[in-house]
């Protein structure tokens, strides 16, 4: 299972990077979103996988031993929400960028440097 998910994570990172290297600014943002997905998944997978035992206390004996690790889940939740905030900002930035510069071509960013 680990190998499969590792491959998946690799593909997601790869796609994200590829999108980031495009000229279209929208693909850039898409790449950022993908990077976020890949990373969330990485956090989840790298810290060990437990099937079928969500981290809820149900008054059962010895349940904590088999329970999935809640910490990475909490971290991912935090990362997701942060990602949402930053991505939302990036989206508005792209919107403003287009309305001010009139282009979505990133190569046109090169002027003036």
């Amino acid at each position, binding site marked *: 299972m*680990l*190998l*499969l*998910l*590792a491959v*998946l*994570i*690799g*593909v997601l990172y*790869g*796609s*994200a*990077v590829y*999108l980031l*290297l*495009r*000229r*279209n600014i*929208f693909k850039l943002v*898409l790449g950022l*979103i*993908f990077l976020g*997905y890949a990373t969330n*998944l*990485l956090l*989840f*997978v*790298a*810290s060990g996988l*437990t*099937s*079928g035992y*969500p*981290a*809820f*206390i*149900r008054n059962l004996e010895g349940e*904590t031993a088999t329970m*999935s690790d*809640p*910490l990475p889940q909490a971290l991912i*939740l935090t990362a*997701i*929400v*942060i990602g*949402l*905030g*930053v*991505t939302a900002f990036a*989206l*508005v930035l*792209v919107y*403003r960028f*287009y*309305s001010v510069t009139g282009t979505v071509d*990133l*190569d046109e960013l*090169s002027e*003036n*440097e």
Partner: protein
Amino acid sequence: MNSGLLIGLLLLLSFLAPFTRRYLNNLAGPLYAIVPVAGIIYYLRALPVILKGEVITESYKWIPVYDINLSFYIDGFGILFSLLILGIGAFILIYAGKYMVPYPMKGRFMGYLILFMAAMLGIVVSGNLITMFVFWELTSISSYLLIGYHHEKPEARTAALQALLITGFGGLALLGGFVLLGLPYGTYELSTILADPEPIRSSVLYLPALILILLGAFTKSAQFPFHFWLPGAMTAPSPVSAFLHSATMVKAGVFLLARLNPVMGDTQIWHILLTTFGTVTMVMGAWFSITQTDLKKILAYTTVSALGTLVLLIGTGTQYAINAAIIFLLVHALYKGTLFMMAGNIEKMTGTRDITKLGGLFKEMPVAAIVMSLALVSMAGIPPMLGFVGKELIYEATSLAPTSRYLILLAAFFTNSVLVFLSLRLSLDVFWGKRSDYQKKPFDPYVALMAGPVVLVLLSLLLGLFPANLAAPLTAMAITSVSPGHVAVGLKLWHGFNLVLLLSALTLFTGYFMYRYKRMILEHSGSINLRYFAREFSNGFVAAVDGFLHFTKKQTSRIQHGYHRFYLMTVFAVASVLVWVMIWRADPIILELNFADMPLNLVAVVVLIIAAALSAVISHSRVIALVAMGVIGFGISIIFIAFSGVDLAITMIMVEVLMVILAMAVLYHLPKYAKYSESGARMRDGLVASLVGAFMMVLVLQAGTTQMSEPISSFFKEASYSEAFGRNVVNVILVDFRALDTLGEISVIAIAALGIFSMIKLSKRKEI
């Protein structure tokens, strides 16, 4: 009074000068001079103690952790220099107070001069290498500000920059040298270092330290091949040339060499380097001075030559040589200070310093003519001026040099002959002969302008007349500090008939001969210069700076090219190289491939996500990419569910949907996009992307297969309900165990919200 206080007072004065100058008006110069005069009095009072061979030290704690102190160390050599600096300095202040009257920003100018004085004094009385270095650099900076006084002229800026960069370069080397020198001692205190040369001599650091220190000294003292900044610095007003660029600052390098002679000196490499560079500089300075016509440039090149002589003498290191060095230092300071001030006076009176446009000034400026001629007599080394004593000693020292004796002697002979030639020229061509036309009628300058030259030249005369009584004790106390093993040789005007006298006579004759046939000499040396030295060093410097700028500009546009995606590509490419190196350095992962634990449905979900990701990448349609993004989100939340992440899956779905909505809302405004990259670029990007993806994959495998310690989360599981009263452990972590994370996270959210609000708000403003 002590040295620290004196320097402090000078610094204070330099700070106050810009604010007080305009109120004090013409009195400013003399009033400011009170401080150095007080200093002179203090040192003169200390003189008896020093003459007994004692050393006065002061020390103030500065950076105690590293044992760096603000120490002062006043020995015979130091006090000699101090008197010179303060004495000439006082006269320069008086001189400058008058000289600068027609110019703007006099206050700042005076301030810089005094700042320089403080710094220079600091160098010579420093008892700690770091202290000395601080003052050393201060002289460079004040020199920069002074050379650039006429900063609206491009050549002044260039000259100032040139001087600063050359001495700055040397300063940096010196810093390295000092630090290295201090290493074997564990301290920078001169008293410790000077007491015992052994630690550094036996260290491998000796050679690097020596070379670095020599770089510092040579640049400051305008040794070949760093000499060219000094003639350039002549764009500065004459008080500056007189004070910094002849009498004092340029001597700092020589001072340093002499100061460190007991520790660094007397080794093979020391002799070779110093005598070689000293000789070359001496001859070269003399040679280039021949063809100059600008009064100050002539003096500048002779200064270069004199500095070469001093370095040569210190490098020679014999008893006579050290004696000669000390005497010549004094001699040179006295006559060169005078000459520069006089050059300034002549320019002031006639409006030019071109000697071909000067002549017959004796009638209008008799006092000036006498003073200047006397100084020139000293320069030519003719009795009874002190210059004669100096030149005699030089001949004696060089004739006794341990190596390359005749070559050096020849060089000294040539140099001295040129000095005689120039002395004749500067005195006869300027004050006698045919009178030129001047813009206004010249007259003998004001007292304030003449006070310095007169006193200095008289001092030169006095010391020359009574060398044994006046000059000898000073040399004697200096030589014990510079070269502890040696004693002072007796100084006298008359040595009897010997080789040295013969050389002196020959020198005078040659000098006169050169003057007699000066037209021919000038012609020939001019053509030689044109042929071999057409490219002046300073031009070379300017070209080098331009070339450097051009190079950096090109490099910059190559590196910081502005193409965002290449920035990103560099980041990713380098990152993957680095991470791959780490992976390669680690042990290979042993993977137990167990296909039984791969539920088919999850394989399907993974394949689905991969297909969606690839279609997002390949597709030209952004809508399809967004749909694919949505599909990926669903897939990931299924993976979360498969491995027990309930809250995660819910959040993922919701964020996913909201993200799609937001992205659509943005797309709503964006135009179609039709440019596609070439296949080559795609291949390259694909390669980088797969490198990144692959290393992330390997890292996940590494992390997933190793478990070095028990995770801390067992605590959360135990404490979640019993201590934090929540059954949803993930939520309890978020709002209790790690609430600070969450607080930070909602701050991010709030800040992003505020940012979005601001951007839209400000954009509206522009549209209205």
